[in-house]
């Protein structure tokens, strides 16, 4: 088990390394120059070539690509994520400011989608063929096909613009004003959780229906156990085995979604920061965000693989 985790961690490091190389190259291959954008912002277009060169040296942009990559890596090992060109501050400051917002929304969406998706799926399977099952399955099928940002815009239009029940956009910390904060995150969290809830509902339902037909469930009935016990003890644990895999993938999905949703709702998390950083060619910021997201996705998948063993005793970690 320990050696399995160590091997998986090692593989995770390899994956993360590949991700850093790819994002490092891609952001630099995009047309445009971060300095030009920075200068446009600061109204300093009239710089001489020497002054430009000075700025390049300041941000380490005068070096060759491999050297820049090594600089970045060396910095990371010292706990330094580099300097944002566009904002001209330490990337760590940006991250500590923006990260909690995205984590808060993402964690809420993750927990809500896990709880609701599994609950809906189980209920649908147990009530198969009833109007409730038909309705929820229909909604889930619609849910997986609708783009979340589009749902966000529709929600804003209906709930904020027309009805005036919820603020259009923006974010404030729950520590500042819990009630107002909650009002503001209802719509973005709904959008983030929409696809995960819908897909987990579908998957849990079909997995439950498959398990219900297994011979060992018939054996459980033949023992005279009550339906409640058969569902809770014999069915759900088996049905969750395939669901757990997808829950790991949801982490990546929710992070991806936050890039769009934070822009739609004007929320200053790292999702929106990522969009802006790509537009501004803010190399170090894009790199840092991608790295953090990659690390979290790798960890999520590791947790998923370990929880498999807890669900399914047939799995051996070799």
């Amino acid at each position, binding site marked *: 088990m320990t050696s399995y985790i160590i091997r998986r961690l090692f593989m995770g490091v390899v994956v993360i390394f590949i991700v850093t190389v790819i994002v490092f190259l891609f952001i630099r291959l995009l047309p445009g120059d971060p300095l030009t954008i920075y200068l446009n912002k600061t109204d300093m277009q009239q710089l001489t070539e020497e002054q430009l060169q000075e700025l390049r040296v300041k941000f380490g942009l005068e070096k060759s690509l491999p050297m820049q990559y090594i600089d970045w890596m060396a910095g990371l090992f010292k706990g330094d994520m580099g300097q944002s060109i566009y904002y001209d501050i330490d990337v760590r400051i940006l991250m500590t400011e923006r990260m909690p917002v995205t984590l808060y929304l993402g964690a809420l969406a993750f927990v809500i989608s896990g709880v609701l998706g599994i609950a809906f799926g189980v209920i649908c399977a147990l009530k198969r063929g009833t109007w409730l099952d038909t309705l929820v399955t229909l909604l889930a099928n619609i849910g997986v096909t609708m783009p979340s940002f589009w749902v966000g815009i529709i929600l804003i239009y209906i709930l904020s613009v027309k009805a005036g029940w919820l603020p259009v956009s923006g974010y404030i910390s729950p520590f500042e004003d819990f009630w107002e904060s909650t009002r503001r995150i209802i719509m973005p969290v709904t959008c983030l959780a929409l696809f995960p809830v819908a897909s987990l509902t579908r998957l849990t339902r079909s997995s439950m229906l498959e398990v219900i037909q297994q*011979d060992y469930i018939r*054996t459980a009935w033949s023992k*005279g*156990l009550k339906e409640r016990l058969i569902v809770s003890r014999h069915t759900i*644990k088996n049905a969750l085995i395939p669901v757990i895999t997808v829950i790991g993938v949801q982490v990546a999905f929710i992070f991806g979604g936050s890039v769009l949703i934070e822009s739609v709702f004007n929320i200053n998390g790292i999702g929106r920061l990522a969009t802006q950083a790509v537009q501004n060619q803010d190399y170090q910021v894009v790199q840092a965000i991608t790295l953090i997201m990659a690390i979290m996705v790798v960890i999520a998948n590791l947790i998923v693989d370990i929880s498999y063993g807890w669900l399914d*005793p*047939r799995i051996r970690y070799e």
Partner: protein
Amino acid sequence: MSLLSIENLKTYFHTYRGLVKAVDGVSFNVDEKEIVGLVGESGCGKSVSMLSVLQLISSPPGEIVGGKVMFEGQDLLKYRSKSNMMNSIRGAKIAMIFQEPMTSLNPVLTIGRQLTESMEVHLKMTPQMARERAVELLRLVGIPDAKRRLDAYPHQFSGGMRQRMMIGIALSCNPKILIADEPTTAVDVTTQAQLLELMRDMVDRFNTALIIVTHNLGVVARYAERIYVMYSGRIVESGLADEIFLEPRHPYTIGLLKCVPQLGETRQERRLEPIKGLPPNLINMPPNCAFLPRCNYAIDRCNLEPWPSLKHVGGRHYVACFREILEKS
């Protein structure tokens, strides 16, 4: 009065290819402590009729459309499948062992959990008591090192050991009847014999009646006191083991006996004759005798009239055939 008597049971499946009359008017009874065999080719409706007794038919597509299942003075078919009444019968009064040892146990629950749960439910045992009794049961069914095995999972057991465990689970609440649905079909021959011996010893010890369902005449010959021969959803012949083996009267039974090798018989003495043709598929059956297309004894009447009902022909012997065949073997 019999312990269990099934009267004119009908279980149909509504499939997209048509109506499958898997069990079509089966009557059957079992006395206390009796060992009864139910024989027939696979697909003839043996499992479905036994599952119907406990209402374990998945519905849809299955439906018990008629008949009675009388047990201790009550018609079990009057109760819904998920009713408390059925739950208090299943496992406690009538227990069942299934054919597939590899898939009949829950892969994610420990052996101990699966052994103790029916005792906790029916006998109201505490988990501690149930565990102690589980150890004893595992010993009784011949699983060594029982205490340690309680925390093992089914995949760590061989097929034969799982069936032993199933026997232990089935007998844990001291049921009146044990239904063993082809319990040895999926295990190798030596294990088969051991399991059958074990089952006989156990029902003897627990004073339980046993219904052995099988397609293997050798098995019933050795263990059953009384035999039902099933063909295409109906009972075609029933009687004491001697009556069936020494004086088979239905062409199907005669055919079955002709294709089983007997001990001490040489190749020259008797050729084994397989029954020609295939068992019918049960979709949209004609009303007359289902064995007709394969029958060597058919007469005109068989074509003209609907399926004959069971007739008493002496002793406890019943046959469903228009011909009065008497073949001594």
